[in-house]
């Protein structure tokens, strides 16, 4: 097991290098904004522009810049400095991570808490109005664009501009350490919005899995043993049906930790997502690189964790 993890981690490191190289190339090759020009403004002379380029280290050749970046990262754990704010990229990432963590994990809890009972219920009461309602709800949840849903949520429920003032609106986020009550209240709408799509997807998925599992032989055996229907559905049915969901959740969390850009921008939550959005708009390359790497890290780690988790959950996989 240890050897397996080690192998995966090493391969993950290789992937990270590749990802950062790709980001590098994409940034410079595609028609994105030039950070030097953004900083210089339109009045700047070519000389000034050149000076700014120099000070930002943009004058070296691409491979040389990339090499500098790699070595400072690996030897000094230094991700560089933001062109825009002069703050170190590492400090920016650390500063923004708690909000994204809070948003992601809260949404995860919410969507699982809702999707699991709904999915099980829809499967067990298949064909009834419960099932139809949840399937319809699921389609709705999946098809509503998150950004739009966020705006609608604000215009309906936020206490400053909403029709029914219920919950704090955009920009209300405060760190947990500052005010737990306000922190929680500010995250409720974002959690709901972020969880909506996932709830729908997971409920549908679980419903499908459950229907399949409940027709399996071992469920028939469980019934033949005289177990209560509740035990059959949950301990035998859900246990088997949920395994793919757990691994999917792991991957989704890994992705979300890279930043739920849409929700963060609409609610103005200072997380990794809004950081990467701003960085792209401002052509702040070091920050872009930092957020991309962080997101890639999370995805890679999530994949490893999910693999291990799957082996833990499904003993049949362990032999392979």
């Amino acid at each position, binding site marked *: 097991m240890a050897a397996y993890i080690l192998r995966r981690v090493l391969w993950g490191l290789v992937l990270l290098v590749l990802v950062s190289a790709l980001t590098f190339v994409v940034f410079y090759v595609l028609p*994105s904004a030039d950070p030097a020009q953004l900083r210089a403004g*339109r*009045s700047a002379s070519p000389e000034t522009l050149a000076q700014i380029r*120099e*000070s930002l280290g943009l004058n070296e050749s691409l491979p040389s810049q990339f090499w500098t970046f790699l070595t400072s990262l690996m030897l000094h754990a230094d991700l560089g400095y933001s062109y825009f704010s002069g*703050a170190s990229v590492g400090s*920016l990432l650390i500063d923004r991570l708690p909000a994204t963590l809070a948003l992601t994990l809260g949404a995860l809890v919410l969507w699982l808490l809702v999707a699991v009972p709904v999915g099980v219920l829809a499967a067990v009461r298949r064909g009834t109005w419960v099932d139809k309602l949840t399937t319809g709800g699921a389609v709705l949840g999946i098809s509503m664009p998150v950004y739009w849903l966020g705006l609608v949520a604000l215009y309906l429920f936020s206490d400053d501009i909403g029709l029914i003032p219920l919950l704090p609106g955009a*920009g209300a986020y405060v760190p947990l350490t500052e005010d737990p009550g306000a922190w929680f209240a500010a995250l409720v709408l974002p959690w709901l919005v972020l969880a909506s799509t996932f709830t729908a997807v997971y409920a549908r998925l679980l419903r499908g899995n459950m229907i399949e599992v409940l027709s399996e032989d071992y469920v028939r055996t469980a019934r033949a043993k005289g177990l209560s229907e509740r035990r059959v559905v949950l301990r035998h049915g859900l246990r088997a049906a949920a395994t793919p969901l757990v691994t999917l959740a792991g991957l989704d969390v890994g992705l979300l930790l890279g930043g739920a850009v849409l929700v963060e921008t609409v609610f*103005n939550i200072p997380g990794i997502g809004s*950081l990467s959005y701003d960085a792209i708009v401002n052509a702040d390359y070091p920050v872009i690189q930092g957020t991309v790497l962080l997101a890639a890290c999370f995805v890679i780690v999530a994949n490893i964790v999910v693999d291990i988790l799957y082996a833990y959950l499904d003993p049949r996989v362990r032999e392979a």
Partner: protein
Amino acid sequence: MPHSLVRAILLGVLSVTAALVLAACGSSGDDGGSAATVDSGKDGRRGGTLTLLTSQDVANLDPGITYSSLDLNMLAATQRTLYKYAPDDPSNIQPDLAAGPPQVSPDGRTLTVRIRRAVRFGPPVNREVTARDVKYAIERGFNPNVANPYAPQYYGTVVGADRASGGPIAGIETPDDHTLVFRLTRPTASLLAEATILPLSAPVPQEYARPLDARSPSDYGNHVVSSGPYMLEADRDGRVLGTGYGPGRSLRLVRNPNWEASTDERPAYLDAIEWRIGGRPGVSGRQVLDGEGMILGDTPPPALVKRAYQDARDQIVFSPGAGNRYVTLNTAIPPFDDENVRKAVAAALDREQMRRIRGGEVVGDVASHFLYPGVLGFEEAGGQEGTGVDFLAEPRGDMELAREYMRRAGYADGRYDGDETVQVVGLAGAPDDANAQIVDQTLQELGFDTNLRIVDASVYYSRFCALPRARVHVCPNVGWIRDFADPQTVLNLPFNGAYIFPENSPNISQLDDPAINRAMARGELTVGTDERASAWAEIDRMVIATAAAVPWLWDKQPNLSAEDVRCVPQLWNQGHCDFSYTSIE
């Protein structure tokens, strides 16, 4: 795109924006129907915290670097430049750090400024500001680690500036602690006096800033020291990053304990100003309209402008003199290398429609030349009437005249029949993309085959319009905002043949008219405010006559504030509420 489809789209756009059209009845032309445009800021209520909502972060905290209008607003509260504009007078400079009016020698080569006494730096520097601090502030602009964008342009004539790279500049003299003398190689002292309203002339303490300026790029911005009524909240060592400034998140200005009210005209009513960075303008705008103690730093979306204008008129200000907008025509490559073709485009464009689509009368005046209200020389160049050229006489466009010009260009039909496909690059986002569509449509009516691309603001100039090798023919969404009231700052860079660069080129039309270039060279060296106004007004007329670009709007920038905020707009700076004069009721 086929003709009929474009028409259909435009009709659709129009019918949508017709809903946005703000009726002419009831609104007078010049103040846009708003109650509080011109406000001197007297007798406000003291106290309170103003919250500013903005989607874009501060570009830079360093007064030696920063250049965007919102940042200028912040610096106006925290830094004292030699001269400044009062919020309600965008044309005439007032002494700020200076003790009196600028003394320009008759030959225009010497500028003498006396500094006020008893002005002190904020913590952690705390001492009195001297002339040497202004000297260092300007010198560091030439330091490659700072690389101030306009320093070479306005301070470049100072003796020794051409060799400057952060070290002392001989032409800036400080005979005593409170006197500054600029010796210039050319007679540009009048211009220099006005240029000091830009933040570069805000004093910077050398002993404190030098180690920070040694870093590449300079880190002074994260440790900036104030000289004005407010300062960025900082820790004991003066570091603002992490205290007063959270990148992409927040900014906090508090009172500068060392500010001496008797040395300053600013009333400074507010106790603190907080910036909340990152919200979407559509949402933030509504929060401002419905909330308390808030102002919006972004341009509000058209729907909100309409709503505010109809339901909360005293919460919206349309600040005049916010800049000009024009359509550039690439004079370097066919078909617009032909002056007659350019005049045809100018005649054909319906400038009223261009304005209507942005919201109608309240968003600005239909432009007929490049100098705009508030800029010196505006009246001399023709004012609201225009310079008198026939191809800009009709704001609604004159297609007959346009065809006449096409015929003069050699197209017998009055329509283009050549081989060039005209590349048009427009700006993404409403209503700019609609403006681009109208221009595109106009070109097609003149017979051009066009290829319209809509691109994001971050690449509009850097990868397209300001990049000559991109060979873009028409850029409909170009505009210019003055650096200060002197008309040179509006006409020089965009139309002087000396400013055609391989990249980041400000002269997008690539106009290179020797007569105009000479006139501009003379105009740079003209001494005296009135004389300069006349000289540059004449240049405005000359540029208009070439039709290198078609002006279509003199912007009035809409600004939103909450009900309880008495916003005092900076007419010299896009109408942003001046923190030092604004109060909360």
